[in-house]
């Protein structure tokens, strides 16, 4: 296929998407204009955004200026970056200087950050064109993007269904052809689960591999930024650009970005792939059938499948839903009506805090702030938060034991394909169960990614999750590339 034609998969409208790799190469050599790429995305947005609602803000004018500049640089023979002309959507919890950043919350509506997140700067330095800021569950708390203060995002593959969450807008934007790639953040599965539900590749890097500077914090010991793409090669290239040490994030690991594009052709010959024999129940048969097919594909490519145990996996939910709200209740204390966003005036400072936060936060955010504050309060700390941290250790220990026997573990990403709106909104615990397979990775600080593998109920995509130990990105991408080839 020629570089200008693109090799991405067709979306539901039959439009063949271009890939990051193809666009960057073609724009840099002058055979494709950045403006043409952008205008394709803007046309798709004009056609379907009112139905999908992937964006909180489309930055049309800035994007056009930027694309024109990149084309001019190419014409002038200037060196352009590794992502020249690649259109990218950013989850609206990443700071963009002078461009509204809301976290899909009323409390931040209208706020324009005075700086760019490190990932935003790195993408811009490599020639990316930002299309807009995408919708999310308020402050990234949710698994369906139904918790946004600005209304839900719909799954472009079936608009009666959710796109997953919390990075639902970033997933929908790529699946609908509104952008070539996007960034999301993953605290308990918020990149991998929407990637699975929208038929995309989604990566949660090892904790500390991608800078969190400029990402509005939710659970600081769990959050990582990562890409959504239509191909594994695109995800590898995006990772190479956004990863690597950042002195502005004190939890950033002091090492360069992993080189991943070279891994893709290496295959899985001799690799040991773990199958969890005591996996939590509740996955639907269509999802489990694709997981089996994925094991078969890796076996056929020369890998060995070995049994491993994760007895603490189910308890990860409990640990997560105490640790994440505890960290969130602390992080969200900064939204107090003083420095940014909403203020509800009152007679004194304390009343202003209480009234502003009551008016600014939605139900799920209030619920988690309450849960977290309770779990951290005197008299309850040891019973809840303290225990949760010990369960977190058990999960890390289970993984350590499993990885003495295998190089990577395969699980479903989500127990089901994309579900219908309202299916899980009445019962918070049912919604939390969506994340049972993704949460342990965040608790342990490891890397994982979701790769589309076949379809399930109603012809909707199924995602297979590849789990690896900390800094296992290279073998993870080898497995991902093999699964993609087997499609």
């Amino acid at each position, binding site marked *: 296929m020629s570089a200008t034609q693109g090799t991405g998969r067709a979306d539901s409208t039959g439009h063949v998407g271009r890939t990051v790799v193809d666009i960057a190469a073609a724009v840099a050599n002058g055979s494709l204009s950045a403006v043409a790429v952008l205008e394709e995305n803007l046309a798709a947005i004009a056609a379907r955004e009112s139905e999908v609602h992937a964006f909180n803000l489309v930055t049309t004018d800035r994007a056009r200026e930027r694309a024109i500049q990149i084309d001019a640089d190419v014409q002038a023979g200037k060196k352009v970056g590794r992502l020249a002309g690649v259109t990218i959507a950013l989850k609206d919890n990443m700071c963009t200087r002078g461009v509204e950043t809301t976290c899909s919350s009323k409390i931040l509506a209208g706020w324009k*950050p*005075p700086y760019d997140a490190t990932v935003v700067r790195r993408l811009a330095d490599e020639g990316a064109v930002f299309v807009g800021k995408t919708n999310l569950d308020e402050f990234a708390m949710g698994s369906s993007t139904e918790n946004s203060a600005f209304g839900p995002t719909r799954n472009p593959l079936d608009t009666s269904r959710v796109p997953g969450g919390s990075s639902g807008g970033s997933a929908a934007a790529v699946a609908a052809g509104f952008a070539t790639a996007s960034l999301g953040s993953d605290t308990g599965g918020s990149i991998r689960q929407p990637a699975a539900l929208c038929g995309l590749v989604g990566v949660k890097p*090892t*904790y*500390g591999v991608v800078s969190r500077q400029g990402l509005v914090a939710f659970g600081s*010991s769990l959050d990582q930024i990562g890409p959504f793409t239509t191909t594994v090669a695109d995800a590898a290239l995006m990772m190479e650009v956004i990863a690597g040490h950042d*002195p502005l994030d*004190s*939890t950033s*690991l002091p090492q360069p970005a992993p080189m991943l594009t070279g891994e893709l052709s290496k295959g899985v010959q001799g690799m040991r792939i773990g199958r969890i024999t005591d996996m939590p129940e509740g996955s639907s048969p269509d999802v489990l059938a694709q997981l089996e097919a994925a094991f078969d594909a890796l076996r056929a490519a020369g890998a060995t499948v070995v049994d491993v145990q994760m007895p*603490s996996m*189910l*308890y990860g939910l*409990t*640990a997560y*839903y*105490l640790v994440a709200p505890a960290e969130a*209740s602390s992080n969200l*204390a900064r939204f107090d*009506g*003083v*420095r*940014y*966003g909403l*203020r509800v*005036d*009152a*007679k*004194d*400072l*304390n*009343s*202003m*805090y*209480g*009234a502003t*936060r*009551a008016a600014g936060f939605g139900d799920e955010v*209030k*619920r988690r*702030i*309450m*849960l977290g*504050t*309770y779990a951290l*309060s005197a008299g*309850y700390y040891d019973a*809840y938060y*303290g*225990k949760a941290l*010990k*369960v*977190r*250790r*058990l999960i*890390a220990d289970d993984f350590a034991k499993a990885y003495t026997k295998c190089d990577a573990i395969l699980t479903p990403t989500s127990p089901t394909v994309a579900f219908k709106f309202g299916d899980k909104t009445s019962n918070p*615990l049912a919604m939390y169960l969506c994340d049972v397979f993704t949460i342990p990775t965040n608790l*342990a*600080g490891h890397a994982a990614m979701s790769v589309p593998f076949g379809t399930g109920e109603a012809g909707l995509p199924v995602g297979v999750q590849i789990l690896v130990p*900390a800094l296992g990105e290279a073998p993870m991408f080898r497995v991902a590339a093999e699964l993609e080839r087997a499609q």
Partner: protein
Amino acid sequence: MPEPISRETVQKVARLARLDLNEAEVERMTQQLAGMLEHFRDVDALDLSNVEPLTQPIPLANVLRDDVVAPSLDRDEVLGSAPAAQDGRFRVPPIVGFEE
């Protein structure tokens, strides 16, 4: 694990979190938090007596940088996005004198 959460505890936690909740919210929150905390008792099945808590997934110690002057955020730009500012500072309502 402790006893189920009460209305009074929910109201106290809301005060700690600087979150004004109305009556209906206190009611709903009491029920929902009780349901979740009940579910979280599943970890009581685990023996955690000799387990070290894990606070940081990948611990880094003493992350320091050289003490050199670097550009910082523009003050006017920062104050420009605040709800209220005056004389180069954030402006807030009275801090003392109105405590109940």
